[in-house]
């Protein structure tokens, strides 16, 4: 029986106090005296989705901030075998690169001590700062061999697209470490979240984030990142997936006409994307089994799709209810854990 794997759980940093034990004296003093409070750059609304509203909150702190509570829902109630933590604490929002790097390291150490040590069924993403690619590389290397880390994590929005040359050493290191790089909803703090300025509504931001994901994939292909690092795997987290077929068609058509501009892109863009990119499924865009299965058909299969609940912001009451009725069991099992088991070598 394939493992039931939740590929997107948010470990929530309730406040900077949580990270103080993991900071050096210098940064501890700085954080305490300045009162800095990094945002959650995913900018979720105050309330949880309806399915999650009964989620018990810890006595102190926010939903999602304590491993023991998360474990109860994920492992006891839902019978999840493995849960992958993608912490969206806003390291990328800190303009001070050294502070950002220190906070990222603190988040990772906190995850090790207060999540991975609490339950062996947790895995975590290495949160890396994105102000300076060298700092991201350093943190990746610091954590890559520590047990329990299964991928690196960057926010999907950034100042410049991640395919840019300054990021290539980072992606090379990730590929060599056999760690996927996850691009997760969030980031781009201080920059408009759409391609035409600042939207009004959270609804718009969540629509626009699919564009950010697509822009990153365009960049990773055109800058040759997938070509140079054939073992690199990228996971698009919480940005949808139903947009991928139309992107592939458009991208391939344009590449045929414009490939002289990027001669290092030797194959059809769709080949790189279908081989080297995984995507989490929730919040689910295709609401019916027909639409979901048609999308899977357009992608040539379901093998790159990963169920991720977005705990504590889950919109389905259980993994069994995560996909509409009518999805064949074989497909459901792949989505609910078979694909993740292979990707993360669980």
């Amino acid at each position, binding site marked *: 029986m394939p493992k039931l794997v939740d590929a997107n759980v948010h470990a929530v940093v309730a406040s900077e106090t949580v990270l103080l034990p993991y900071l050096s004296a210098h940064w501890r003093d700085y954080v305490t005296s300045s009162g800095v409070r990094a945002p959650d750059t995913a900018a979720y609304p105050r309330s949880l989705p309806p399915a999650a509203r009964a989620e018990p909150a810890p006595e102190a702190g926010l939903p999602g901030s304590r491993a023991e509570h998360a474990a109860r829902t994920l492992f006891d109630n839902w019978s999840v075998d493995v849960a992958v933590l993608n912490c969206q604490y806003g390291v990328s929002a800190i303009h001070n690169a050294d502070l950002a790097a220190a906070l990222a390291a603190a988040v990772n150490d906190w995850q090790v001590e207060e999540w991975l040590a609490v339950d062996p069924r947790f895995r975590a993403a290495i949160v890396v700062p994105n102000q300076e690619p060298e700092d991201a590389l350093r943190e990746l290397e610091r954590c890559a061999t520590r047990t329990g880390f299964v991928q690196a994590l960057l926010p999907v929005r950034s100042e410049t697209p991640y395919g840019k040359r300054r990021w290539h050493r980072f992606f090379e290191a990730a590929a060599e470490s056999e760690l996927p790089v996850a691009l997760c909803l969030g980031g781009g703090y201080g920059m408009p979240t759409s391609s035409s*300025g600042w939207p009004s509504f959270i609804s718009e931001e*969540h629509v626009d984030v699919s564009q950010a994901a697509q822009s990153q994939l365009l960049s990773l292909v055109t800058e040759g990142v997938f070509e140079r690092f054939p073992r690199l795997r990228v996971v698009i987290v919480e940005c949808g997936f139903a947009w991928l077929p139309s992107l592939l068609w458009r991208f391939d*058509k344009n590449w045929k006409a414009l490939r002289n501009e*990027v001669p290092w892109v030797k194959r059809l863009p769709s080949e790189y994307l279908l081989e080297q990119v995984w995507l989490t499924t929730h919040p689910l865009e295709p609401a019916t089994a027909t639409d979901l299965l048609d999308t899977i058909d357009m992608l040539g299969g379901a093998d790159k799709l990963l169920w991720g609940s977005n705990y504590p912001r889950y919109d389905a009451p259980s993994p069994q209810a995560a996909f509409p009725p009518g999805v064949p069991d074989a497909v459901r099992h792949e989505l609910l854990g078979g694909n993740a088991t292979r990707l993360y070598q669980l």
Partner: protein
Amino acid sequence: MTETLVATGARRRTRPAVIDCDIHNTVPAPAALLPYLPREWHDYEREIGSRIYHGYLYPKLAPNAARRDAWPPTGGPPGSNLPFLREQLLDLYDIELGVLNCLHDGYRQMNGRYSAVLTAAVNDWQVAEWLDPEPRLRASIVIPVQDAEAAAGEIRRCARDPRFVQVLTAIRVHEPLGKPRYWPIYAAAAECGLPFAIHYGVAVANPPTATGWPSYYLEEHTGAALAVQTHVASLIFEGVFQRFPTLNVALVEGGFAWLPSLMWRLDRYWQEYRVELPWVDRPPSEIIRERVKVTTQPIEEPPDPRHFWKVLEQLGSDDMLMFATDYPHWDFDAPGQALPNGLSRELERKILADNARAFYRF
């Protein structure tokens, strides 16, 4: 009707009628607008001239992003010469009607006052040098989009001429187009019975994506549809279609295969965040099917033709697509070649002409 008698040299058209919803007429040079520019602005044009928001510089496949054979033999850039455009497009493909979308820099001047006079000059130039001599052409009103009141005035001025069939903006404006600052534009368009067209266009003040500036034209061009989606979401969620119940919108030169998945996404978030969108009274996908049309070019070409049919089915309406060539650009779609084989005759007629006929009330 599948056949239309065309009084062009008494030839009888036996193919389905074609209405081209995206033709780019080009101002040959700044001097060409001087006869239409108020005298008091001539010094400004000569000494300062065009100042557009910078940052957008992506060498295209070819100069002017045009087909290499579209440079008029008598001079001027592609799209600037009416007789040559007739020869290469209107006559060659027997186009019944063509909608001009002039992408002149007037709309994206840093100097908003200059935007207003330039766009008015372009509209007058269009009347004199395109609409008057060529009865098969219709035009879009170009507007100083960042100044909604001035734009509204220009719309009302030009709308007196029924050969202006829509209001045009390029994407990547300062803010998502649903924002209330742009509403005077929609009020004027709706009042004048004109649709609002959003066209793939060039950067104004913002990077083309929420992840910064792409390096390559391939990257930027492929991402162009993404920017259109920002505006669809904004128009829907800001309640523009409720506030202006007669306003229709055309999405031009962004392709369309992404539209079903966008509709799913919009529906999903409309359901979850209803509390911030109380004026959106029905699912976004329904609103889109009723009020939004999309031009076909650049038409997507999935390797498995079944998927093309599936997208059409997922659109949920035969009335949404309107054929466009995008003459004279390099990714020009020729009538008779662009649409896949296997379309029913009825659907082919709709896409090639009837949907546009209904939308523009030709």
